[in-house]
């Protein structure tokens, strides 16, 4: 029993950690800006490309290989700093108050542009940079060899979740964000600079997506098409958790990952269907996600 359950468990958590960051970012942006960013997955792949490029450069320049670890974080920050304020201040801001269709279309247009920009900048062949995996080595759990890096990822996901709680609950900016999430009108009436909050939240969302991509690179290849695939997965996770619900996203990531892992172990033919099947089942029972609530219109 132990022999079969433990690997399932480790695999599910390792998978969950990989998709958690990007879903977390998507749901965060939605909770503050009320916008579903269709281009979100592209920032995941851009983060992956940038971190792989920096990692490859570190290795080829003969620098200390341990530098590849901070490089993961730095590349996510770079991507966020480069795209976050720019895109929010220009494209996204223009769509506020214009309805979901415009917002979805605008970000879909952005998605198309970013997909080709990646091709132009990074080319079309796969990138692979696994120095961090090699440095950390491996461990045997339940008779199966896992990468210590995978365990590190699980820990990082937990840390990120806790950090977010602390940020929201115990910092001034976090509290302001919480107010904006709770009631936009009231927060504006209170004199909170919501525009700045939007920029910050959007940038933070991009950072999380890019970080997800960066953290994934040591264990996965980066190639065109990654953004589109990641987008729907992040979307499924965010929807299952309830759009805008961070804890929901964490739980949903684990559920989706567990479903996928179970499928690979038991019904390999269904592995790609699993996340969406779970999403459909959850949404049939709870249309607004596990933690979500519908809004009632006043007349």
């Amino acid at each position, binding site marked *: 029993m132990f022999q079969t359950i433990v690997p399932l468990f480790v695999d599910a958590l390792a998978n969950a950690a990989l998709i958690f960051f990007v879903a977390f970012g998507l749901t965060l942006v*939605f909770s503050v800006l009320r916008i*579903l960013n*269709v281009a979100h997955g592209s920032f995941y792949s851009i983060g992956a490309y940038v971190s792989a490029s920096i990692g490859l450069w570190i290795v080829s320049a003969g620098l200390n290989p341990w530098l590849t670890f901070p490089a993961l974080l730095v590349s996510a920050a770079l991507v966020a700093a480069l795209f976050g304020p720019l895109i929010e201040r220009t*494209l996204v801001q*223009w769509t506020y108050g*214009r*309805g*979901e*269709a*415009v917002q*979805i*279309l*605008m970000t*879909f*247009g*952005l*998605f*198309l*542009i970013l*997909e*080709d*920009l990646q*091709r*132009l900048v990074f080319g079309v062949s796969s990138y692979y940079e696994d120095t961090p995996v090699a440095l950390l080595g491996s461990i045997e759990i339940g008779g199966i060899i896992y990468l210590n890096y995978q365990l590190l990822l699980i820990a990082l996901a937990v840390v990120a979740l806790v950090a977010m709680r602390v940020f929201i609950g115990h910092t001034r900016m976090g509290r302001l964000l919480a107010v904006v999430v709770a009631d936009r009108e009231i927060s504006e009436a209170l004199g909170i600079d919501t525009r700045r909050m939007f920029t910050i939240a959007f940038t933070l969302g991009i950072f999380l997506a890019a970080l997800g991509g960066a953290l994934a690179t040591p264990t996965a290849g980066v190639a065109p098409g990654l953004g*589109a695939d990641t*987008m*729907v997965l992040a*979307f*499924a996770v965010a*929807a299952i958790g309830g*759009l805008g619900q961070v804890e929901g996203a964490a739980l949903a990531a684990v559920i989706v990952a567990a479903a996928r892992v179970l499928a690979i172990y038991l019904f390999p*033919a*269904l*592995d*790609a*269907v699993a996340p*969406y*099947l779970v*999403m*459909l089942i959850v*949404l*049939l029972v709870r*249309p*607004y996600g596990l933690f979500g609530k519908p809004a009632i*219109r006043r*007349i």
Partner: protein
Amino acid sequence: MRKPIPLLVAALALLLLVPVAFPHLKFVITLAVAKGFAALGVALLLRGGLISLGHAMYFAIGAYATAFLGSKAGVSDLVLLLVASTAVAALAGLVFGAFLVRYRAIFFAMLNLAVSMVIFALTSKLYGITGGTDGLRVAVPTVLGWAPGKAAFDGFLFYLCILLMVVLGWLVHRYLQSPLGHALSAIHTNEVRLEYLGVSAWQTLLTSYTISAALAGLGGALAAMSIGHVLPEFAFWTESGHLVLTAVLGGIGGVAGAFIGSVFLEILHTVAVGVAAEAWNLIIGLALICVIFFLPRGIYGLIEARRGSTKETGL
């Protein structure tokens, strides 16, 4: 409210000349019109204020129905195939729609995406039934007993598509002018009032959702015959995104918009191939954003005669 009828007729006449003037555009236009049906379906829902990020699934369902009926059920007649495939897509639309049209805004978009991704994943994973990512082949159908060669069939299909476009376009136009059609756009502007007038928004939307699924399914069936092959990627979410893009680019103000958008995009694609194959998505992405910024009524809005009061589409 004046419609640019002469312009549309002129455009249609130009289209009819395509097989003579530009034979290699025939396939492109056939495909464009087929996709135009799906874009029209999406545009219908946009009128009701609903954005579907999953409508490519009905296109795919129509296409797969054609492939299935042809290869597994031995149906080879074009009329039968088109009717049956459209019916299958409409039925799927009715069943999924009964659940989906309860939701609005982002949730509607999302749930459509969810269903379409299940369809996509199933078509690509059920290798034994759907051929997996290889898809299924579609043989050249017979037409009421006539068994044309591929070339003759392609020519026939082209004119059939144009004919269907005109006939169904007119029917959809009439539908939009009918009380039920007005009720659809009324849902967008004020659903509460509509309910207080005694009209069920659910029924109104479900009707339009089923029609839109049928249109997409018909488009899929036509595309399947034209391409000769069906594939899971027909149902991928980016295809759904492209359908919305086509509808908006063309303009959802009139029925012609969806087809204008579709033909425009396909021809542009043909022209741009070779010149900008690498940056094709970038170009249409930029075009889309420009249309959203500067042309809220789409290309159709450009050619449409000016009306007394300009109104926002209020997307």
